[in-house]
């Protein structure tokens, strides 16, 4: 046998060995569970959960099943993670650039931020923001009145809920699509004429929001508006953003922003100094040379650590359980596990979810990573 054949044999036997081991674990576990008189299986997912959840993006009440609880947990985890990833990315890039600023005050402040938050455990960070919110904002009885359209107190931010009719939703979608096409075309022409594009996302958001607001105002889009109102104990009606969600997102964004800032700084330093000198000498401004010349080259260094940062954001969002944010670990691996006692099934499901999400993030960002790498010829 040559070396290649030996290596194939070794690999195959390793895989077979691992499969056998997994099989052994499953069989022993089932036998032990049966011996202990504990039931197993996924049948519990169809049972009624019987507990309420404070915050959910999808329709949920205590009459729903444990499977629904799983879905609520997933959506809440994803909501917090996605916003926190955007948050830490924005903070990270701004602070990362600031770290290299020629202005000592800017660089100093950025350095203090990074060192402070990178060196404090995330759980403390989240608890800190949570109790700051609870103690900073007024009690329900003394809520801030937001110009008659909403309320702000320690239990959340309350805004009117605008529920459009199906036709109204179609019109809104159409507005966004038409605006996007228009802005992209305009941007393309601008680039051809002047050499610079425009800030497309910003313009799309601004124009479509204005148009939709106008259409709502004159009644073209039919919609029902539910205003938040004070009741005996709480503000009810409308939509509310709970302090647990805010504290979790703020904590995650600030903590992970400090790491992203360091990745960005490293990336920027990896670009040869001649690049920025050359960019400036062609007449680009500081910001233009950063955006058009330096950052694109820095990305190939920034992306790999940035991928693992985002994986960590998703996993660390499970700390929301400590401050009662109803994410997957809190309501599924916590409450549901306790009510049903199905530790193995539930923990495996939660693990499978985090695994899948992490793989998806890696996949997407790896594709992006390939795009930003130098094309060597």
């Amino acid at each position, binding site marked *: 046998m040559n070396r290649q054949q030996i290596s194939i044999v070794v690999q195959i036997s390793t895989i077979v060995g691992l499969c056998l081991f997994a099989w052994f674990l499953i069989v022993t576990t089932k036998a032990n569970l049966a011996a202990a*008189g504990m039931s197993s299986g996924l049948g519990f997912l169809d049972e009624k959960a019987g507990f309420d*959840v404070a915050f959910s993006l999808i329709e949920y009440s205590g009459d729903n099943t444990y499977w629904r609880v799983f879905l609520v947990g997933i959506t809440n985890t994803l909501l917090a993670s996605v916003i926190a990833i955007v948050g830490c990315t924005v903070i990270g890039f701004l602070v990362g650039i600031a770290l290299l600023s020629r202005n000592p005050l800017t660089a100093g402040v950025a350095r203090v931020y990074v060192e402070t938050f990178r060196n404090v455990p995330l759980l403390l960070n989240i608890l800190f923001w949570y109790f700051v919110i609870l103690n900073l904002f007024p009690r329900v009885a003394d809520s801030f009145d937001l110009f008659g359209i909403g309320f702000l107190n320690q239990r959340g931010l309350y805004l009117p809920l605008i529920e459009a009719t199906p036709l109204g939703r179609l019109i809104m979608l159409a507005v966004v699509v038409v605006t996007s096409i228009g802005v992209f075309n305009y941007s393309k022409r601008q680039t051809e004429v002047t050499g610079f594009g425009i800030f497309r996302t910003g313009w799309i958001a601004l124009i479509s929001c204005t148009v939709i607001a106008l259409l709502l105002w004159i009644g073209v889009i039919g919609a029902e508006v539910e205003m938040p109102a004070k009741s005996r104990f709480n503000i009810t009606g409308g939509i509310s953003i709970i302090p647990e969600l805010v504290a979790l997102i703020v904590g995650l964004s600030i903590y992970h922003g400090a790491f992203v800032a360091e990745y960005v700084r490293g990336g920027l330093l990896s670009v040869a100094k001649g690049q920025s000198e050359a960019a400036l000498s062609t007449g680009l401004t500081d910001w233009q040379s950063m955006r058009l010349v330096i950052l694109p080259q820095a990305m190939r260094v920034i992306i790999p650590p940035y991928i693992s940062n985002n994986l960590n954001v998703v996993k660390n969002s499970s700390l929301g359980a400590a401050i009662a944010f109803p994410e997957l670990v809190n309501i599924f691996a916590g409450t549901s596990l306790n009510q049903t006692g199905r530790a193995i099934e539930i923990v495996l499901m939660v693990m499978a979810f985090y695994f899948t999400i992490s793989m998806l993030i890696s996949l997407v960002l790896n594709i992006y990573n390939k795009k930003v790498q130098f094309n060597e010829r």
Partner: protein
Amino acid sequence: MSHIKDMKAAAALTAVATGVMAAPVAADTLEEVLERGHLECGVSTGSSPGFAFLNEDNVIEGIDADTCRIVAAAIFGDPSKVVFSPLENKERFTALQAGEIDMLARTTTWTLSRDVGLAFDFAAVNFYDGQGFIVRADLGVTSALELDGATICTTSGTTSELNIRDYFTANGMSFSPVVYEKSSETRTSFFAGRCDAFSSDASWIAGLRIQAENPDDYVVLPEIISKEPLGMVVRHGDSRWKDVVSWAYYAAVEAEELGITSENVDQVLADNKNPAIARFLGQEGDLGELLGIPADYAYQVIKTVGNYGEIFERTVGKESPLNLERGMNALWSDGGMQYAPPAR
């Protein structure tokens, strides 16, 4: 990038995995305990006044902690031969199932699904409790039935969580739940005003109130919305071990009924002419031998830990800050429910 919580979660997970997967849970717990030389007992994380609370001298005190000591005293004649495992609500059952602890005395409500579905046995009830509510006094609420629309804080993994929903649904009311992982965060948030009411076992609420900066700012509502028999839990299928735990506990209850205390037990033993007491204290008969523990187990329990009444008063009763009435926990002969089957 990892932190304590992650590690704890991982530890719990590993416990499930290794515990249930690898080693079949030991069939004879008593044998194991004797061999090891100490009892492993699961209790609250030291922040549950009256039940398991870490005092200034770093000693865990409380009725749950003393229940563990009773069992240690019965087996070893020494209440200090117990190692306490502080457990969160959601860790407690896994720890017992995986064999990390020998018994659980952690304000655990005896329910059918836990008894049968989780494959446990409840050895005895060391505290009869019920779920209640505590609210901020300035809300002017005087009954739980006025709580429609209120925000209610509770801790995850408890029967309280389900009881609240049942109670509100049954009374046609709604509420919004805020569920924390740990009771310490639940407490801080409640005091910070995150919720209108806090719901848990009445004994726990009494403990919570005295921890407030100004206890008069909070009112305990009169309604008790559930039955919460809090008991000692062991794994199903080890009857001998369950018997040891049950009868060690009953010794403390029986002692109170017979009027034997930690102070007078030696006197009683010296003066005794009553054969029932002689059997009970191990002077004659083979009751301890039947259980597989020393003949004088009851004497050791009474002498080193005390009778049920003594334990109750010093941990949750009149001599403690909680100042709870005996109520349901009085002896059956005083109109309560604490009742020990005869030791004969």
